[in-house]
């Protein structure tokens, strides 16, 4: 094992591959080296000098972010010498900092605040000099630059240069007059530019969309997956009092590294819609009437049992679980099932291989295809004419789609948003949206990824897989899963590619499966 070196970091002995930077080796030893300019998805310029650590026998403190481990290194991250150096960097960073934490969006998730609390000086020695002042700059569609808070770590500049390949940001001026400048002929409007807000370790680059919306410590965070396209970037849904207020990237080195695109980032308002279907509605004497789940499920069961020709019009945002169970519900009939796939321009992130905002703007195209759904929407609409039953699974219908429904004998809606145009349906059943349920999506590379419930469902809404499974139970006596985990485990029987997989196999970063002919042909 000559490729491994043995090092001791704060007394912990570990073996790491040759060439590992000290900062990453320390992570593996369970030691955090405080840092600002270093970011695992960016080149390291070693400018902030926050990560200086003592390596025994080295003449000077070394920057842990760019110094690689050597066999036998004894490294001290938390001894007096290293701490004193960090304390000093913090002091230097703070002399020109406005300390406007009470009105700063970053407060509570600010690395300057955190490290200062952890190991900075209690008071200032700067005295009564004026601090550096630069006005707030509007950098682009969603980004403001609050220069006074900037610590010049250059993460934003490097992201735009080295990752986005759109070098619109720069360091302007020298000495303590330096600030981040923007090319006067350009805006920070690259389709992935919003990542600079997450990368900024302080509150210098902030999102206009999130401006003064919530304090970081009031947010609840839920692991999720972006619904914007087939890439399946991992996200974090931030909620405040059960309202989604922000989406941020969640690291997944195999899918999106540390990034999400601006379109995905801003695509959350629908999760908070208030105009929701809240109770099951069944047609009673020609009128839609609220009822309980028992009666509603019996009605749905009876409808599918009686139907010979069925069409499913589904949303590509539906979970694999829901798509699978809704499809199983109509087993035995002649079925045309399709999802609607809106298209848009592809927008790659140049510096990360295989990462792009994809043309197909739905998250679960691959999951739908595994579950037996096609993408020929007009064929499905044509099939609706003369069908015994059309099941609408939360699909986003335009007026032409709605008109096509009139050719069917009956329409059953499993949906989220109240839609007057569907008032002629036989059944309208309230479903959860993705932020209100646990589920999985399958991305374009057949990575099956979990998302978690971020907020409660309104009224009587239930996950669509539950509705379909219970109706199937009512119609055909098949056992219905009680939880999303059970539902996923049962999908293997419908989608061979998922056979044997459980939620715990997927972890937080998903699992790539091999789509086989059996799964796709169904």
């Amino acid at each position: 094992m000559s490729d491994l070196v043995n090092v001791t970091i704060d007394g912990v002995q570990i073996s790491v591959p040759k060439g590992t930077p000290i900062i990453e080796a320390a992570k593996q030893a369970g030691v955090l080296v405080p840092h600002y300019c270093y970011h695992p998805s960016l080149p390291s310029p070693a400018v902030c000098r926050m990560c200086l650590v003592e390596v025994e026998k080295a003449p000077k403190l070394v920057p842990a972010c760019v110094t690689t481990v050597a066999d036998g290194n004894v490294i001290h991250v938390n001894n007096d010498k290293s701490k004193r150096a960090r304390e000093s960097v913090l002091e230097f960073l703070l002399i020109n900092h406005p300390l406007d934490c009470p009105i700063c969006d970053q407060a509570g998730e600010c690395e300057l605040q955190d490290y200062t609390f952890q190991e900075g000086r209690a008071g200032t020695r700067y005295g009564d000099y004026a601090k550096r002042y630069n006005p707030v700059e509007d950098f682009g569609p969603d980004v403001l630059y609050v220069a006074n808070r900037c610590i010049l770590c250059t993460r934003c500049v490097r992201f735009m240069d080295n990752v986005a390949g759109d070098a619109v940001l720069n360091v302007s001026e020298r000495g303590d007059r330096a600030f981040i400048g923007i090319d006067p002929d350009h805006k920070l409007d690259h389709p992935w530019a919003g990542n600079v807000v997450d990368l900024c370790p302080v509150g210098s680059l902030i999102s206009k969309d999130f401006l003064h919306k919530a304090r970081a410590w009031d947010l609840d965070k839920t692991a999720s997956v972006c619904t914007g396209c087939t890439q399946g970037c991992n996200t974090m849904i931030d909620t405040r009092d059960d309202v989604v207020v922000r989406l941020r990237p969640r690291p997944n080195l195999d899918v999106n590294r540390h990034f999400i695109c601006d379109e995905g980032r801003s695509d959350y308002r629908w999760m908070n819609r208030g105009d929701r279907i809240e109770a099951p509605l069944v047609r009673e004497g020609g009128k839609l009437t609220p009822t309980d789940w028992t009666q509603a499920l019996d009605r749905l069961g009876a409808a599918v049992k009686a139907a010979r020709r069925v069409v499913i019009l589904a949303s590509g945002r539906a979970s694999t679980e829901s798509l699978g169970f809704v499809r199983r519900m109509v087993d035995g009939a002649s079925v045309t099932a399709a999802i609607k796939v809106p298209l848009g321009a592809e927008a790659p992130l140049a510096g990360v291989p295989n990462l792009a905002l994809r043309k197909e703007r739905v998250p679960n195209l691959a999951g739908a295809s595994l579950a037996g759904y096609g993408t020929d929407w007009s064929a499905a609409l044509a099939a609706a004419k003369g069908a015994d039953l059309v099941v609408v699974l939360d699909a986003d219908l335009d007026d032409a789609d709605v008109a096509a429904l009139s050719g069917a004998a009956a329409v059953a809606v499993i949906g989220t948003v109240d839609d007057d145009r569907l008032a002629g349906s036989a059944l309208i059943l309230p479903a959860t949206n993705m932020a209100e349920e646990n589920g999985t999506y399958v991305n374009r590379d057949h990575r099956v990824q979990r998302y978690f419930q971020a907020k409660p469902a309104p009224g009587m809404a239930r996950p669509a897989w539950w509705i379909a499974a219970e109706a199937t139970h009512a119609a055909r006596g098949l056992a219905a899963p009680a939880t999303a985990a059970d539902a996923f485990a049962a999908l293997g029987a419908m989608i061979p590619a998922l056979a044997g997989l459980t939620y715990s196999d997927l972890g937080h970063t998903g699992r790539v499966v091999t789509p086989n002919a059996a799964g796709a042909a169904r």
Partner: protein
Amino acid sequence: MGYPHPPHPKETVVLSKYFGDAEARTFDGWVKRGGYEALKKALGMTPDAIIEELKASGLRGRGGAGFPTGLKWSFMPKNDGKPHYLVCNADESEPGTFKDREIMRWTPHQLIEGCAIGAYAIGAETCYIYIRGEFTEPWKVMTAAVAEAYAKGALGGNVFGSGKRIDIVLHRGAGAYICGEETAMMNSIEGKRGNPRIKPPFPAQAGLFGMPTTINNVETLSSTSHILTRGAAWYKGLCLSNPKSTGTKLFSVCGHVMRPGNYELTMGFPMKDLIHDLAGGMRPGRRLKAVIPGGSSVPIMTAAEAEAALCDYEGIVEKGSMLGSAGFIVMDDSTDMVYEIWRLAKFYAHESCAQCTQCREGTAWTTKILERILRGQGKKEDLDLLLDLSDQMTGRTICVLSDSCAAPIVSGIKKFPEEFEAYLSRAKAPALAAV
């Protein structure tokens, strides 16, 4: 010679022999004075033989750090199939230093010849000469000389019929001191912001445009032709003290002396004689107070230290400072040390490239504290604070600009504490207007 003064008998004129001699600027004039013989000789030698000759001569870098030149050249990879580059550092922005300027003004072909020798020895076909932006006259002289050298076959695709290609590209700086730091210079030549790079990788592995690169000072490269024509043994013999410091060196002397200028001395020459004899000593009625011998980036020497020091790399270290670029800033007893130190700190604060936290914020903060002291508003804890900040600014950053700012402050407070005390105790009237 001590141009603009006639040479002093105690000088050893090698590099400066033709300073002030306008004919030496032309190609023919330079050839008439024995020029380009060294280059022709070099082209008949193997690169290794040249490097060995330089190693034997003991020549060390004249840009500040004093790194052995032959050894530096030997770090360049051999037969790696990549383009190599030589960069000549003619950015000379170190306060108090003006020797490279005179080399370029009067003996441009001396530098061109040295560059060509260096390029050949390290396997480079291209040499960039990075000339300080403010050097308008040297720029003109160098531009004309390079054109002439091409016309006469000393540069270009077939140097003196050897079949070797050597090109020289003149690159004009835009007025940033930091671009004199070698890795910042490479960025600047590449068209990027002149920020120093982290090492490793070292320039010999990945330098200009990512290719193996050697960077040398104007004076270093200019010395090579003389070593090749007169021999390493001759050069090594030019030594009055420590055998690790050989050859002649141009000393720029400025400040409170009667005859400021460049003086070319054999290494190991007594500093006392340089200041009091060659440079003409103090003005009448004035006494020597302090010397900063290495440009402004080294510790300040007291009069006693300076007068006891020998002018070479080791001799000045022994007396508490460093040779640096050998730009001597001489100060007599009329000097307000606090004011001078403030002025230097202000220079570094202005020139910091702003990458490293300690340097960006530390140089500016330090300047503000010194300013406050000069305004008569200093606090008694200010000296400890200055020393503490300097401590944190030393050995912590990508390049040594930060350390350079700290050096005069630490030595100044240590060696001239009473001058600081005078301001702090309000015994002395403020030197700057209070705000």
